[in-house]
Structure formats: C-alpha cells, structure tokens
C-alpha cells in the first residue's frame, strides 16, 4: 500500500474570532494515486478543508502534513504551491487579457522554470486536454469548458503530485461538467497524480476511489 500523501489530525478552523466554526476536528489520510471526493452541501466546509490542504490557509489547531511538508510554515506553503500541488477552482480564476498559453506560463514564471522546458510542458499538456488549437486565444474568447481545461492544465504545469479541485464542474453545464470530470480522472490515472475533489454532486463523488462526506465541519465516510 502506498504512503499517505496527506495526513490530517483533528483539524479545526473557524472565522470571526472563532464565533463561526467551519471545521471541527477533521482527520483524514489520502494515499498517493488516490482520487478522493470531499462531498457535501454548500457551506459544509469542503472548500475550507481544501484550502488548508493546499496551504492557502492555516488551521487554528490540529496536525497536517502534505507531501511531507507542514502547510502551517510559510516557506513550506510556498514550496507546496510551487512544486507539489496544483489547484483548480469552480470559477476558473484565469487571468483575463492573457492568452491561454500566457496563463499556462504563470506557474512556470513563479517557479523560474527554463523557457524550453515550459514550452515543451505546456504543448504536451495542451495536446493532452485538447487545447492545442486554442493556445493563442485570449481567455475571454474561449468557452467555459475550455477555460476549465486551461485551469486544469495550469494546475499541472509544475508537474505536481497532488491536484486539489474545488467544485471544478460547479459552473459548467452537465455535459461539459462530465467531460471535465473525466479529464481529471484520466489525468490522475495516467500521470499518477493524487486528486482530492470537493463537490456537491453525488454522481461525481461516486466515481471517485473514495468519498468522504463533509457535514457541519466534520468528516464521515459515505
């Protein structure tokens, strides 16, 4: 059995000086290569948990290790985001006015990846997700599905071991959502990437290797 890529013990997170408790003692383990769904209703704490796992936010209490790093440490958080994980959001969060290719270059720019390596990587990814013909197009000139595929490519630019996807199909129609989900699963399987997916849609959660239900800030097997 593979090693755990994520280990979380008794994670707690609240807002408004603790008056709003979002996560209330979450523990989980995710092993390399798994596709895990965090399934739950809106406001259940899925996104907050994903943000903690991705080092976008820090827990108030509890222990957390992601890819061997401690996301409570600023330097580790930066290393995580640069080299170990990629993020996909519900709203694609691409930079408008830039082309697809320029958006894909952003993580490489942050990471200082050599130009030739960046070019090869983005071509390969664009081919893999069927975006090669759109590289020169600006974000506002492509469809919602293509934008989400661009966001997935961007998340994979630095060859991460872990992909965190926060409602990646949430803003897409059913058919496009299915395509994007299938793409995530296929990329995870073929590239050995661990995928943690936050979703409120049962049909996607059921297709994952494991699904964990998030309810009132706690995690339960579903």
């Amino acid at each position, binding site marked *: 059995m593979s090693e755990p890529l994520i280990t979380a013990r008794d994670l707690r997170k609240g807002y408004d000086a603790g008056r709003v408790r979002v996560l209330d003692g979450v523990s989980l383990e995710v092993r390399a290569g798994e596709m895990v769904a965090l399934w739950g209703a809106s406001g259940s704490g899925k996104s907050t948990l994903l*943000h903690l796992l991705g080092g*976008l936010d820090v827990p108030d209490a509890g222990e957390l290790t992601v890819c061997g790093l401690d996301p409570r440490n600023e330097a580790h958080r930066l290393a995580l985001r640069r080299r170990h994980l990629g993020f996909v959001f519900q709203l694609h*969060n691409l930079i408008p006015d830039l082309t697809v290719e320029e958006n894909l*270059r952003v*993580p490489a720019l*942050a*990471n200082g990846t050599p130009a030739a390596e960046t070019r090869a990587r983005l071509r390969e990814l664009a081919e893999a997700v069927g975006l090669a013909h759109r590289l020169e197009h600006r974000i506002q000139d492509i469809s919602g599905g293509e934008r989400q595929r661009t966001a997935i490519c961007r998340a994979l630019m630095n060859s991460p071991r872990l992909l965190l996807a926060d409602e990646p199909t949430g803003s897409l129609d059913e058919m496009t959502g299915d395509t994007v989900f299938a793409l995530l699963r296929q990329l995870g399987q073929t590239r050995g990437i661990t995928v943690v997916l936050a979703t409120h849609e049962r049909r996607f959660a059921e297709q994952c290797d494991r699904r964990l239900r998030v309810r009132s800030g706690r995690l339960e097997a579903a």
Partner: protein
Amino acid sequence: MGFLALVFVNLRRHKLRALIGVAGIGFGVAAMLAILSIINGAIGMFERILAVDSHYLVFEKNVSDLFFSSVPDEKTAALRAMAGVESAEPLLFGLVTSGDRPIITCFGLEATNPRLARAKWSAGRREDFGKIADGIWLGARAAEFLDARAGRKIAIGKGEFTVAGIFSTENGFEDGGVFLPLKDAQAFFHREGVASVVAVRLRDQARGAAFKQAVEAANPGLIALENREFNQGYTQFRILHFTAWAVGLCAFLLGGLGVANTMLLSVFSRIREIAVLRVCGFSPGQVAGLIFGEAVVIAAAGVALGLVLGYAALFALQHAPLFNGYIQAIVKPGMLAGIVATALVTAVAGALWPARFAARIQPAEALRYE
C-alpha cells in the same frame, strides 16, 4: 511571457489609470526641468555679468544683495595698484524705469571694461563709450523693447539721454539692460564715488589665495571671492536653487501621490487575481516586484513624457517675445540625472504601500473576495 510582460499586461488593462500616473510623473519632470533649467540659466547669465575676464570679485562684506554693496573708488584704485593685479573693473548696478518698463537693469562701467570690447556693436562705436555727453548705450533687446535707435533721445527715470550706441552680447541680462559710464551712473543713482563690485583679473591666478588674504586684511569691510566661490556661496543663488528644488519636489509629491493612487486602484481591482498568482506559486516578494515593476514602467514613461514636455516648454519660453530673451535655459547632466532619479524614487515610494498590501494578500481570504 516573462515577468515584464505580466507588468505590461496589467498596465495595458487599465490604460486610463496608468496614463494618469504617467501624466503625474510627467508633469513633475517637466516642471522640475523647466524651473531648474531657467534658474540655472538665469544664474549663469548673472555669473557671466560678474565674471567677464576676471578671477576674483571684490565687494562689501555682509550685504544681502550686490545692489546694496558699495566699494569706494579709492579702494578700486588701491586694488589696481596691488602687485599681481592685471586689471580691476568696477561695476555699479542700478534699476531704472523707462516708458512702460518698470524695471531695467542699468550697468555703470568704465570704457576699459572688457565686455564692451567683446560686444557686437550694431550702432555707435566702442571707442566713443563715455565720450558723448548725456549718452546712454543700450543692449540690443533693450533697444528693441524701448523702440530706440542711435541718435534718438529716450527718457530713463527722470532724465533724458541720447542713445549713443547699441550692442549685443551673449548674455540675456546685459542685452536687456542699459549702460552708462561709471561716473554718470554714480551721479544718476546718487552713489557718487562707489561701485557695487570690482572684478579683478590677476596676472597669475595661482596666487589668488595671497591676493584674497591681502585684500581682506587691508580692507576689513570688503570680501574677495573667487568666481567659483562666489557662485556657490552667494545667498541669492542659493535661495534660487533651493526654491527651484522645493517647487520641483512639490510637483513630484503630487506625481508620487498620483502613482500611489494608480497602484492602489490597480491592486484593489485585482485582489482575486493576485491571490491566484499566489496560488500558482508567486511569493510575496514576486507579487511586490510586480507592483514595483508597474510603478517603474509608469515612472519611465512619465520621465519620457516629462522630458518632451519640459524641453517643449523651454523652447517656447526662450522664443516667447514676452520674455525679451531673458530666459536662457541651461540643462546640466547632473541636474537631469537628479530629476530622473527623483522621478523613479517618487514612483517607487508611491508604490510602497500598494506593494506591501499586495504582498500580504492571503490567498484563501482573497479568493472569497468579490
């Protein structure tokens, strides 16, 4: 796409905002360039009035302005008699009125003064200077604005003089002034027996220190300053320089506030985008670098615009009939470098707070921001 491309994309996206920042810095640069160059030019002209063919200026100690300095004629004679002195030329300054011109500089000087020999005479002869009764000699521009010609009578103050000659020099102040023989000027201004300043030329400039010491020892009421020393120490010049930089810096302050405003709006309008950059691996330093990069590009464009505007303004002012050629701008390389450096520092200072704010954006919090 490199880091710089990202900087340009952000500026291009908010063109109007960026242009306002550029204009702020540009006007600061133009104002500073125009003011400093005009003042440098004015000081340069004044320096040349005093320092024609001389090494030292001797004048009364502790006067606030050379117009109030009095060097008695016998002191001039004593200076001429000193060993090592090649020439000592007294010069009396005064202000006169004529027609609708309330202020015209009048120079009282002797016929031996080298500026008369250097001048380009368009009417009259240098040899006749001081030999024509009730004669007055005019700078070319003064003749123009007084509408005077050789041989005509003109009213100067309460007196009436005959225009005995007209000449031009390279100096705008002199060209706009009137000239009287020293004795006539002393009588006209009721300052018989004195000059404002004596310009001394030494046979051996290396012996200047000994000359200065001797003059000041023999005449406790006088001071002898080397031209360079005079230019650096003369209070009026220092006030002018200080004023120019103060006005220029105020202009820059406004420019800096413009940049700060531009950068703040730029940061506030893309908080979410900056959060995404952080998610993609940008460090706080890289985010701050992006904001500073934008400020530097704005400053660079502002400097270019400001130089164009500044030079255009100087050209227009130098050629405006209104100023009678009094404006002779001097642009010094050091001054230009100072202006460019001030513009960059202003822009970077204006971007400090926005950059700090942007660098501290927490991704999770910012992603919730709408």
